[in-house]
């Protein structure tokens, strides 16, 4: 298990859980980041928001907020 901000560019995986403040949970859920959904990290550079593709949407999420999102990385690619 990893946090979303630790996933390297180009890797993909599945969201396990979303923690953090309630309003963050609501906002991030509404854009499609929910447990069970598949994602791939498109860009993950220090000091920049994490760019991920999820539910056919390209999404930028604040780095520190990404630490609230637990994920499972698919190893074989």
């Amino acid at each position, binding site marked *: 298990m990893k946090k979303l901000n630790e996933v390297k560019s180009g890797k993909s995986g599945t969201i396990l859980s979303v923690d953090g403040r309630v309003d963050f949970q609501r906002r991030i859920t*509404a854009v499609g980041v929910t447990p069970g959904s598949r994602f791939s990290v498109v860009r993950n550079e220090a000091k920049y928001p994490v760019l991920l593709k999820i539910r056919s949407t390209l999404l930028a999420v604040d780095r520190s907020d990404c630490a609230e999102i637990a994920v499972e990385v698919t190893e074989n690619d």
Partner: protein
Amino acid sequence: MTETMTIALLGQPNSGKSTFYNALTGSHQHVGNWPGKTVEKNTGIFKCKDNTYTVTDLPGTYSLAANSEEEIVTREYIAGGEADLVCILADASQLERSLFMLEDFAGIRVPAVLLLNMLDVAESSGKIIDVPAIEKSLGIPVLPFVAADKKYYGAFYKLLERRDMKNWILDSNSLSEMYKSEFGEIYDNVLNTLPRDGIAVYENSWIFAKLAENDMAAEAMTETAVGRERFASIKKDIEKINNGASHTGNCKFKWIDEFISDCVSNVNSKGSTDELGKFDRLAVSKRGGKWLAAGIILLGLMVSMVFAAPLMYLGSILPLLADPVSKWLLDIGTAPMLVSLLCDGIWTAFSFTVMMCSFVFGTTFVFGFLEEIGYMARISYVFDGTMRRLGLHGKAVMPFLVSFGCNIAGATGARVLDTWGQRMAAISMSWVVPCGSTWGVVGLVASVFFGPWAAVVVFLLFAVSVLHLQLTAKIFGKRFLSESDRTGLIMELPPYHKARWGSLIVSSLGKMVSAFKRAIHIVTIVLVIMWVLSYTSDGNLSGSILYRIGSVIEPVTMWFGLRWQTFIAWLASMMGKEGALGIIAAVFNDSNVLHSVAMQKVVTVDSVSIGESLSAALTKPEALAFIFAFYFNMPCLMTMSATAHETHSLKWTLLVAGYYIIVSIILAAVAYHIGCLIF
């Protein structure tokens, strides 16, 4: 028989609601390719087959949760029973995400239709949507749609003629089944405690989901409906749920996924790739991204000045008309004082406002273009870190960028921010950004006095701006940005679109006209006051009230390094930054003040002569003091009125303005006294 019916447009940000609204009603609401442009609901009417319809364009929200003002506006409107029909727009090219709004709507008993908008984009990526199947599983009419194409509107109008609208209630059964299996006993308990038929338009499953999401508005509503005791028992059950929002979201998306796998197929075997496009790879890259953005912005600002030129020219020749007109008026026997009021005061105000509006047009057009194609969201991404240092996030970059062209347009650019606090903070910090006209004046004065060293002055101004920005963030940041306003960036980077030139031009013109209407009153009042102060029957300034006031205050203004003339110029710059040049030209030449406020743009107050009269009258430290006072002064009155309009807070706008004024004069004093040591 005629009937009136009210239609509400509901959908996630960037799903095309305003495009649809504009096409229906012929209005010009802001449209652009990045999320969150509409912040207030707008209402318009249209006619079709003798019937009149009222439509409401709602702010785009990702869900019906009560997270932000926009979401509360939206939800109250939908539930208030005002709308007879809700049109839910979903972006067909990103169905999986955009249907979330539909799911959050399920359980609200208001007639609805689903418009699958941007069908053109979806089809070009190879998506095939089985509309009848969707209709069947939702229980409401579904319309494939392209809001940008009139061809599709016939089917929509036909739909409005149908008589069975009352039955178009979105089927929420399969979603409640999902909740039931996800939450089990808790779900059953809560539902047994709630009134059997739900509350108002809300079904119990909807209320349950909102309670699980810790939605305060829903809690309050439930408490009033069931009484305190029963609510306490509901609350006890709900508290057993951890991360409720994430669980209910999960149910909603599960439902969407099932539905999509049944009704949507993709002929394009590759499907959508997770790779970035070629341009995006550069646009969001760590090194190149910022440089690319800076280059494009710079180019954009240059182009916007070109677009502003025709109107600017018009504004600059208007004052020329004042001479012949005033001669004619005098000839037919009008009182000279009245002629002067009309030609020097009111006419000047008019031409002045026209010129300033040209900047509004140029910058909204160019930045509107960057927005429409979808590049603005990329700029926000690369500058997120910079904005975070000010307590804001990437989306706040917009007002700052636009302000380099025009602070008025910058204030409007803050609309994409989520909360009042963020908007207020971003706008008040963006006031320090020098607009196009500020550079004009600073450039002239600095080069007259400092020659090649002007570059150093400009560098100093920039450096002090950064400090100023930090001070503003410190003083007002805490006030405006409460803990809940300090949210991190969550932003969709929309796919690139083609620009639609026609609507771009129309909407930039619309913004310009509304800025003009707002400003003309204020500018006229201020100029008439100035006219009264500077009026003399012989046109010789030294007989005027202004001159007398000037000589009285000079001993005080000199503490700050400002001669009375530069002090008046500094005051005038609050009206409009270019105004300062006109005043300088006028007061140092001892001719009529107001007339020259307008005349300066006639390329006229030719810089050489201003330069000469200036360098004869001011010392270097005095010039430096003026540059600082002028540069850091609040932006023009029009920016102020735009800010008050955007933030609905005259009080805070005035306080921020007061802060800018005071800081500018203090900085002038510092610059003057340091200058005195150097020169």
